[in-house]
C-alpha cells in the first residue's frame, strides 16, 4: 500500500474511531488527531513528490473489477495540481475542526465521522486516475455533505440539503453516461473497456469532433454545477447559508474546487478540441459569474449569503483562467483555488465564530465589533482583504494571473474578458469593504438609531437579546485556528513562487500542449514567459 492509499483511507479510521468513542469531546479529539495525522501523511507525500516532473507521480494501480468487457482499476496518483489541492484539503480539515470546536450541540461523534468520510472522498477525488474510481468518490462525497447540511443545518436545511443533492446528482449522472461512452470507445480502440485516464487521453483525442463535444458537455455540466458557474449556481447560496460552519468551510474551501479541478483534468485534458470550441461560452459565463456574483453580493443583508455569492464571483476568475489555457491562466487558476479555499474558508469560519456568539446572520444586527472584539476585527479584516485581492495577500496573485492569462490568451483571442473581469475586482472591493464597514465599524448594534432609519431599525431593537452582553474576543483555540490561515495568506501573497512551482511543470506542459494544438506552435507570449 503506497503513501497515497494510506492518505486516502486513513481518515476512515478516524471515522470509525469517532463512532466508537461515542463521547462528544473524545470524538472531537479523535477527529482532530486523525486530521493532523492525515495532514502529516500528505506532507510526507509532498516530500516524495518531485516538482520537476510534469506527469503523474506516486501512482498505485491494482485491479478492482476485472470481468469480460469491463475493467476498472484502483488507480491513484498525483500531479502538481492535485498535490496542491490534497494539501489544501488536509490542512483545511484541521483548521475546520479546531475552528468549529464548540459550534455543535448534537450528535457530535456522527458529525465528526461524516467529516472524516468527507475527507477520504475529497482526497480520493483529487488522486483518482481512473474515471470510474473518480466517479464513485465524487458521488460518495454527496452523502456526508447531505447529512451535514440536513441534520446540523439552519432553518431551511432540508430544502438546502435536497437541492444540493439533486443538483449535483443531475450533473453527475450525465457524466456517468459520458464515462461509460468513453470506456466503450476505448474498448473499440484498444480492445478492452477501460476507464484508465492515462489510456483515455489518446482515445479521446481521436474521437470525431461532435462526439468530443457531447462528452465535453456532459463532463462540463457536472463540473459547472459543482463550481458553480452561472447560471447553475443557485444551489450554492442555499447550501452555504444553511450548512453549519464546518460544512460551509469545507464546501467553499474544497468541494467547489472539485469542479474546477475536473474542468482542468478532464474537460481540458481529454477533449481539448471541444474545449476550444466552447472556450468562449465558458469564459463569458465565467465573466458573468464574476460580475453577477459581485452585484448580488452587494445587496445581501445576510453575511453568509454575501460570502456565498462572493464565491460565485471568485470561482469565475478560476473558470476564466482555465479557459484561457495559457500558462499564466492555468497557474493562476490553481493558485486561486488554493487562495479562495483559504480566504473564503476563513471568512466562513470567522463569521461562524461570531454567529456562535450572537446567533444572527443579518449585517444590520452587527456593528462596533472593532471596539468590542478587536482581535476578531483584525483577523476578519485580513480575510476580507485577502478576498478583495489586496496585493501582498493571496487573492491578488490568483486574480492577477488569471486576468493576465485571459488577456494574452490566443484561445480567447481578445482582451475584453480581462477588462470585464477587472471590474469584478473593483466590485469585490466595494461589497466586501462595505460589508466590513457595516459589520465591524460603526455603532454597536442596538445603540440609538440615527434619525431617518427609525422604521428599519425597529425590528432590530426587538431582537437584541444578545445586546448588552459583553462580546468575548477570540479565544486561544480560535486564534490557533486562524493564525495558520493568515500565515499562508501572507506567505502566498509575498512569495507565490514557493507555491506556484509545485504545479508549475504540470500546468506549463498542459498549457503548451493545448496551445500547440490550437495554434501550431508556442506563442511569442509564451516564449517571453519562459
Amino acid at each position, binding site marked *: 500500500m503506497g503513501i497515497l492509499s494510506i492518505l486516502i483511507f486513513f481518515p476512515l479510521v478516524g471515522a470509525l474511531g469517532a463512532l466508537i468513542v461515542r463521547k462528544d469531546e473524545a470524538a472531537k479529539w479523535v477527529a482532530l488527531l486523525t486530521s493532523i495525522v492525515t495532514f502529516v501523511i500528505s506532507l510526507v507525500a509532498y516530500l516524495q513528490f518531485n516538482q520537476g516532473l510534469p506527469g503523474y507521480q506516486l501512482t498505485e494501480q491494482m485491479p*478492482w*473489477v*476485472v*470481468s*469480460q*468487457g*469491463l475493467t476498472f482499476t484502483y488507480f491513484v496518483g498525483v500531479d502538481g495540481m492535485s498535490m496542491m489541492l490534497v494539501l489544501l484539503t488536509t490542512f483545511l480539515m484541521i483548521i475546520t475542526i479546531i475552528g468549529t470546536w464548540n459550534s455543535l450541540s448534537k450528535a457530535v461523534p456522527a458529525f465528526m465521522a461524516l467529516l472524516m468520510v468527507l475527507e477520504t472522498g475529497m482526497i480520493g477525488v483529487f488522486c483518482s486516475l481512473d474515471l470510474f474510481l473518480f*466517479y*464513485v*468518490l465524487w*458521488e*460518495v462525497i*454527496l*452523502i456526508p455533505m*447531505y*447529512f451535514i447540511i*440536513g*441534520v446540523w443545518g439552519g432553518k431551511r*436545511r*432540508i430544502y438546502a*440539503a*435536497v437541492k444540493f*443533492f*439533486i443538483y449535483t*446528482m*443531475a450533473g453527475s*449522472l*450525465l457524466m*456517468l*453516461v459520458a464515462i*461509460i*461512452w468513453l*470506456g*466503450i470507445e476505448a474498448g473499440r480502440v484498444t480492445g478492452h*473497456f477501460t476507464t484508465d485516464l492515462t489510456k483515455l487521453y489518446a482515445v479521446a483525442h481521436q474521437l470525431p469532433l461532435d462526439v468530443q463535444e457531447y462528452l465535453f458537455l456532459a463532463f462540463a455540466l457536472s463540473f459547472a454545477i459543482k463550481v458553480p458557474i452561472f447560471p447553475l449556481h443557485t444551489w450554492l447560496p442555499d447550501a452555504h447559508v444553511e450548512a453549519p460552519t464546518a460544512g460551509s468551510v469545507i464546501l467553499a474551501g474544497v468541494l467547489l474546487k472539485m469542479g474546477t479541478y475536473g474542468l482542468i483534468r478532464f474537460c481540458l485534458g481529454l477533449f481539448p478540441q471541444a474545449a476550444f470550441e466552447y472556450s468562449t461560452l465558458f469564459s463569458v459565463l465565467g465573466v458573468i459569474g464574476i460580475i453577477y456574483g459581485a452585484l448580488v453580493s452587494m445587496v445581501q443583508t445576510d453575511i453568509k449569503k454575501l460570502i456565498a455569492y462572493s464565491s460565485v464571483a471568485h470561482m469565475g476568475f478560476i473558470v476564466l483562467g482555465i479557459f484561457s489555457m495559457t500558462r499564466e491562466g492555468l497557474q493562476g487558476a490553481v493558485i486561486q483555488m488554493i487562495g479562495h479555499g483559504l480566504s473564503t474558508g476563513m471568512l466562513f469560519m470567522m463569521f461562524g465564530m461570531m454567529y456562535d456568539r450572537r446567533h444572527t446572520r443579518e449585517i444590520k444586527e452587527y456593528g462596533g465589533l472593532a471596539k468590542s472584539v478587536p482581535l476578531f476585527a483584525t483577523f476578519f479584516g485580513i480575510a476580507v482583504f485577502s478576498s478583495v485581492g489586496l496585493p501582498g495577500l493571496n487573492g491578488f496573485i490568483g486574480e492577477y494571473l488569471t486576468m493576465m492569462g485571459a488577456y494574452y490568451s490566443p484561445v480567447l483571442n481578445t482582451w475584453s474578458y480581462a477588462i470585464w473581469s477587472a471590474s469584478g475586482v473593483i466590485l469585490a472591493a466595494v461589497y466586501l469593504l462595505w460589508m466590513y464597514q457595516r459589520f465591524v465599524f460603526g455603532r454597536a448594534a442596538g445603540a440609538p438609531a440615527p434619525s431617518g432609519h427609525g422604521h428599519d431599525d425597529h425590528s432590530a431593537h426587538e431582537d437584541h437579546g444578545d445586546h448588552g452582553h459583553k462580546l468575548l474576543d477570540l479565544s486561544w483555540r480560535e486564534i490557533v485556528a486562524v493564525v495558520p490561515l493568515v500565515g499562508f495568506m501572507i506567505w502566498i501573497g509575498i512569495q507565490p513562487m514557493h507555491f506556484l512551482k509545485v504545479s508549475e511543470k504540470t500546468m506549463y506542459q498542459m498549457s503548451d500542449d493545448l496551445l500547440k494544438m490550437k495554434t501550431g506552435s508556442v506563442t511569442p507570449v509564451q516564449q517571453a514567459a519562459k
Partner: protein
Amino acid sequence: MISGFQISARDIYGVMPLLILAGTGLVVLMWDAFEKVPTRIPLLLTVLGALAAGATGIINIENTGRVFNGMILNNGYSNFYSALFSVAVVIAVLLAERYLKDEEVLIGEYSALTLFAACGMIMLASGNDLIVTFLGLETMSIAFYVLAGLFRRRQESNEAALKYFLLGAFSTGFFLYGIALLYGSFGTTNLDGITAALSIPAKSASVLASPMFWMGMGMLIVGFAFKVAAFPFHQWAPDVYEGAPTVVTGFMSTAGKAGAFGALVLIVNIAMAPMTGNPAALNKMQTLIGVLALASMFYGNITALSQMNIKRMLAYSSIAHAGYMLLGVAAMSQAGATSVTLYLTVYTFMQMGAFGVVGLLEKQGGVGLNLSDYAGLGRRKPVLAFVMSIMMLSLTGIPPFGGFFAKYYLFTAAIQSGLTGYAILGMIATLISVYFYLRVMVVMYFRDAEEPALQVSGGGGIALSTTGNISAWAALAIATIGISVLGLLPMILTNLAKTFYLH
C-alpha cells in the same frame, strides 16, 4: 421423442436445487399440519433446505448442458438463479418470523408457499422450453396468489389476492397465446430450436418478417411485463403490494421479478441472440422493449414521488426498477443478460432489506406505514434507520453500494448496444427517483417526530413479541452485507457471470 423419454440420474442431479426446495416445502407443510404447539422447527427446516439448495446451485455452477431431453437448462445461469432464489427464501422467512407472529399467522404455511414459489422461479430461470417457462410461471404465481391473501381476516389482503389472481389469470392467457404463436412461427417451443431456426439466414428472414412472430413475441412480452409489473401492465402492483403482508410483498417484488426476468432474459437475450444479424428486426425488438422500459422508469419514479405510504412508494419504485432491468433486456446482448442478472441479485438484497425494515416497524393491522411515522427514526432506532438509509442509497444507485454497480453495468450494456439515448433518459429517470428515496432519509434524520406513532406503547406494537428478533436481524444483516460487499467487490458476481453462457 416421447417414446424415448427416460429419466436418468443426470436429469435428477441437474434439477437438484429444485428438488431440494420442493421436498423441503412438502416436509414443512406436513410438519405444520401435525404440529400441536407452534415451534421454530418449520422455520429452521426452511432455512436449512434453502441453504442446501443454494449451496447445490453454487457447487453446480460450472455444469453445462441440458437435462430432461433438452427441456431444462443445467448451466451456470440456471444454477446461479437457483442460488439467488434460495437466498431470497432465506431472507424472506427470517424476516417473517416476528412479523407473522405479531399478526398471528403460522410460519409453516408461509414457509411452504415461499418454497413452492421458489420452485416455480427456478423452473422459469432454467426453462429451456417455453412450456417449462409456462409451468414455472404458473407454479410461482399460484403460490403468490395464496401468499398475497395470507391474512385471511384482513380485507386488504383478500382484495390483494383476488386482484392479483384475476389479472394474473388474464395475463397467463396472453402468455400462452404468445407461446402458441411462437410455436407457429418456429415449429418448436424449445429455446435451442428457436436459436437454431434464427441462425439459418433464410428461415430467420422469413420468421422475422412474419406478423405471427411479432404478435407472439408481443404477447409473450405482455405476459412477462405483467409479472414484472412494467408499465402499462403494472395496474395491479401498487394495490397488491400494499395489501399483501409486508414480508410477502418484499419477496414477491424481488424474487418474483427475478424469476420472470430470468426467463425473459433467457428467451430474448440468449435464445434470440442470432437476431442481432438482422438489424431491422433487432431495432424493432429493441424499440419494443426499450419503450416499455422507459415508460416504466418514468411512470414508476414520477408516481412514487407523490406516495406517502411507504409500501406504495416502494411498489411504484419497483415498477421503475423493472424498467431499468428491461433496458438490460433491450440491449439484446450477452452483456445485457449479465447486467440484468447482477441487477436482480443486488435488487433482491436491497428491496428485501427495505421491506424488512418496513415490516419490523409496522404495527399490527398495518399501522405505521406512513412516511410521517418514520420521523425521528434516526434517533429512536439508529440501527434500523442506518440499514434503511443504506437500502435507499443503494436503490437510488449511489456508490459505493451494490445498486450503483448494478446500474452501471446495465447502462454500460445498453450503451454498448447503441441505446445511448435510452440510457440518458434512464439517467434522468434515476434523477427523479433521488427525490423520494432521499425523502425517507430526510424524514428519518432531519425531522423530529411530532407524534411518536411507532414508539413502544399499548395496543400491540413493535415490542409485542421479541421472538424472531434475532432472525429478523440476521435477515437484515444478510441484506446489508450483501449490498455493501457487492458494492465494493462486484467482481464476486462478475466472475460467476463468466460461467453463465457455457453450453
